[in-house]
């Protein structure tokens, strides 16, 4: 029994072993995600209330979003979830090169998603669909349409913020993985960041039909 086995550099002194430490990290991450569910849940609830009040206005406002861009972004994000899952798998197998490769791929896909989002937001500014003093919407539904766009920007903005936070974390992980920090015994940060990234993907899976595809298309 070597000394190194008892003192893995990543093992905190208050844990018996790495397995116990990982389960504690994992539980903590899931509790964080549970509160994220309630955090986004509040906005999904607001959406539910207003959509039930103004179904026609929501359908009309939704048609001003480009569902093709939304669909492409859905595919991009799902692909990034796959690369993230493959990065975690590579870490569990101890394949250092693949961890870095798949993390970078995830960063690239996440950046493409945000790039498309920038184009979409720019288009909304141009067409006066940003809630506020300059909001313009043809027809009698301007007021509830503004509510739709308030929800659109709040929900997609908060979602994008999560990705903007996630990308630098992925880059740091890629750097540390490159330096050989993660092994099959210890790669908890890669796994926990994976959970976060997949959660963000799930939020988008709901946002896509609820924002881009309201009413007959």
């Amino acid at each position, binding site marked *: 029994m070597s000394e190194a086995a008892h003192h893995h550099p990543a093992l905190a002194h208050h844990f018996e072993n*790495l397995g116990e430490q990982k389960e504690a990290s994992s*539980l903590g991450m899931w509790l964080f995600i549970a509160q994220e569910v309630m955090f986004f*849940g509040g906005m999904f609830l607001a959406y*539910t209330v207003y959509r039930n009040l103004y179904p026609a206005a929501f359908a009309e406002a939704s048609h001003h979003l480009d569902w093709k861009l939304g669909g492409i972004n859905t*595919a991009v994000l799902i692909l990034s*979830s796959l690369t993230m899952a493959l990065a975690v798998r590579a870490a569990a197998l101890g*394949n250092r090169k693949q961890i870095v490769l798949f993390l970078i791929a995830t960063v690239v896909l996440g950046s493409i998603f945000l790039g498309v989002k920038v184009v979409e937001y720019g288009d909304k500014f141009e067409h006066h669909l940003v809630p506020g003093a300059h909001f313009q919407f043809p027809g009698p539904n301007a007021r509830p349409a503004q509510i739709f766009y308030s929800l659109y920007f709040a929900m997609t903005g908060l979602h994008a913020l999560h990705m903007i936070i996630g990308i630098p974390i992925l880059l740091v992980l890629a750097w540390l993985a490159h330096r*050989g920090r993660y092994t099959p015994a210890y790669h908890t940060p890669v796994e926990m960041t994976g959970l976060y990234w997949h959660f963000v993907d799930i939020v988008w899976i*709901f946002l896509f039909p609820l924002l881009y595809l309201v009413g007959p298309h």
Partner: protein
Amino acid sequence: MTATTETDVHEHEHGHEHGGRHPHVVPLLTYFLVFGALMVGTYLTVWAAGQDFGRFNTVVALGIAVTKATLVVLFFMHVKYSPRLTQLVVAVAVAFLALLIGGVVNDYYSPRLDGQMGPANIRRE
């Protein structure tokens, strides 16, 4: 290339004795099948938006989204292979969200004492 050192192997055994787990390695095929299902689900979402299911339009869209989310949670997030405690946390989070939204939706689709539908004191368009 493999970075599994003697130390790692030892940690595995040690962790296992105390209820720890080996890192669960999911077969590549599982990941690719889940990815394929998620892409098909995205296509179905767009397809369904072009169909008219009457009052069930939203139900169909959400049904597909819930199925996709379940696949991500079970396989990409490893909940299928996780300890019971993790599974419990996930189930409780989902249950509370369902309670929050379900309770409100129920209000919109239930008859009131005066025979009208939906919550009182709201102006519909």
